[in-house]
């Protein structure tokens, strides 16, 4: 999981590779303090940074959809009037958001 800014870094990679491990990093220098888990190599960390970033980027469509959907109140109102009038306003609105933000 990537923190805050949407940019994967070494901290994210170490947490992903060795959950609950003990370590400290000053700048780019990693001090491994865990006695049970082995320290990941630089290559493993770099590869994990790339993997995490790709995983995060691949879900951009879902984050875009989440902000583009009408509010729950608006959707409930659409569904009420659709049931009264026999229209498809709600289904159309949701479909439009999905179309505008396609899943890769």
């Amino acid at each position, binding site marked *: 999981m990537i*923190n*805050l800014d949407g*940019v994967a*870094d*070494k*901290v994210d990679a*170490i*947490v992903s590779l060795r959950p*609950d*491990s*003990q*370590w*400290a*990093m*000053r*700048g*780019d*220098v990693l001090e491994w*303090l865990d006695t049970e888990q082995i320290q990941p190599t630089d290559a493993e960390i770099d590869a994990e940074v790339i993997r995490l970033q790709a995983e995060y980027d691949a879900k951009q469509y879902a984050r875009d959809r989440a902000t583009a959907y009408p509010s729950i109140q608006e959707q409930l109102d659409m569904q009420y009037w659709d049931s009264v009038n026999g229209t498809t306003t709600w289904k159309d609105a949701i479909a439009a958001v999905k179309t505008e933000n396609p899943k890769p």
Partner: protein
Amino acid sequence: MSTLRVDSIQDTAGTDNQGKIIQVTYDSTARPKFSAAVSTLTDTGFEVSITPKFANSKIKIDFAASVLSSAHYVAMDIYRNGTTGLSGDSANGLTGSVAYYTAFWQNVSMFIIDSPNTTSTVTYNIFAKTYSGTVTIGGAGVGASSTVYPNCVSLSATEIAQ
């Protein structure tokens, strides 16, 4: 023209200097950003040094920084010469709850008054630990840079005469 230099001017009770600031040192070094997942107080690399003019002086250490905790509490403390935690609480340090289940940069500050009882150079170090998750100190506003500039972490030591 002549110059008169003396170590101090005191009243008859000898207390004239009491409470006066003798000197202030400020860490202006661009240091590496600190990140960790560690359950014991660990040296962050942020430090400031001062050479007291008088052995009986008090030293006030001030620290402020942007701190990020990914999951749970962060504890921080100020150590003297890397060995003595000044809070006297090795579990919780000077600060307890920096962040609790949040993922936002928070401004953390702490200070303590120390009595090093020496005229030799004293170095004060910032130590930190987490209870779970990770902690990052410094770095807000500097993007992916691994170097922290003094505007992100400020650390100073003030000598106060007694």
